[in-house]
């Protein structure tokens, strides 16, 4: 009866993992292409307000950011709890904005300069006083294209 012996059922066949690196590489390339490194570490806490009529900021290289908000916990002892302006990696005052914009503009290519956009990323609870001051500074710096950063809101009514 040895002829019809059952196949050994105990040993399970191992799954072929030869294509695993390919899959992983594919994912890797996807993330490498779509990734944008975080440029700055935020020192102010920002919760963006909500809006519905959003326009996307197309080219990252044309955008200059101004962050406005209350300093985060570890900086509160030094900078207080009033909303502050952050440019690049450090705290600044509204008076610094003009030179900051000029500096950013100089770093751009000649024909990109008119397309320069300034994105104001401000906390929803900021008083308008500081925002208005920033706007006036931007006007003086001839950075007239601005964008109030906001999150998409679920449509009402």
């Amino acid at each position: 009866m040895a002829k019809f012996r059952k196949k050994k059922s105990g040993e399970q066949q191992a799954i072929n993992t030869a294509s695993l690196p390919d899959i992983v590489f594919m994912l890797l390339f996807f993330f490498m292409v779509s990734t944008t490194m975080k440029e700055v570490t935020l020192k102010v806490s920002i919760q963006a307000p909500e809006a519905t009529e959003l326009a996307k900021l197309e080219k990252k290289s044309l955008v200059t950011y101004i962050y406005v908000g209350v300093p985060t916990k570890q900086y509160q002892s030094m900078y207080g709890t009033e909303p502050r302006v952050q440019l690049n990696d450090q705290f600044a005052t509204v008076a610094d904005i003009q030179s900051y914009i000029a500096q950013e503009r100089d770093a751009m290519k000649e024909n990109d300069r008119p397309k320069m956009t300034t994105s104001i990323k401000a906390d929803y609870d900021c008083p308008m006083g500081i925002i208005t001051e920033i706007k006036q500074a931007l006007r003086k710096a001839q950075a007239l294209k601005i964008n109030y950063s906001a999150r998409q809101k679920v449509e009402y009514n």
Partner: protein
Amino acid sequence: MGKRSVPEVNAGSMADIAFLLLIFFLVTTTMDTDSGLSRRLPPPVEQEETDTPPIKERNVFTVLLNSKNQLLVEGKPMRVEELKDATKEFILNEGRDEKLPEFNQVEIDYFGLYEVSKGIISLQNDNGTQYAKYLMVQNELQRAYSELRNELARRKFRKDYADIEDEEQKAIRKIYPQRISEAEPKNIGKN
């Protein structure tokens, strides 16, 4: 002559390396595309020009926002939810009301001679106004314009404003130009 075989490189750890890189990019990636409300600031004025022609009262839609985030539109208190419709009514002026803005006859591509409203929206806020509220008002004003443009695009081209050609969009923008003027800031009612 003994045949020397080239030793194969062991690629077993390739997956591990790739995984490591993958995890690194997964962690550092931020997928958010920035978006927000786009606006154009007026160019700076060197001196206060005194001889600018005055704008007629009927052509101005005054929106005031105070430090308690209350809205005053054309002298009447209003909720934000009503602002969009009030703005549309002001720009359209369907009944050709004496109190609502006048119209200019302008030659426009695709449309021919068309009546364009002379209305201007004047937005003024207080230093103590909450930023979120201000943005909400800006958003509502923008929404009024988008809806007007969309309605016109659907009537004329049977398509949404976003789907029509650039030239057509330009024509519609000429009919409904977005004229929001922001007054120089005042500091009233601060406490």
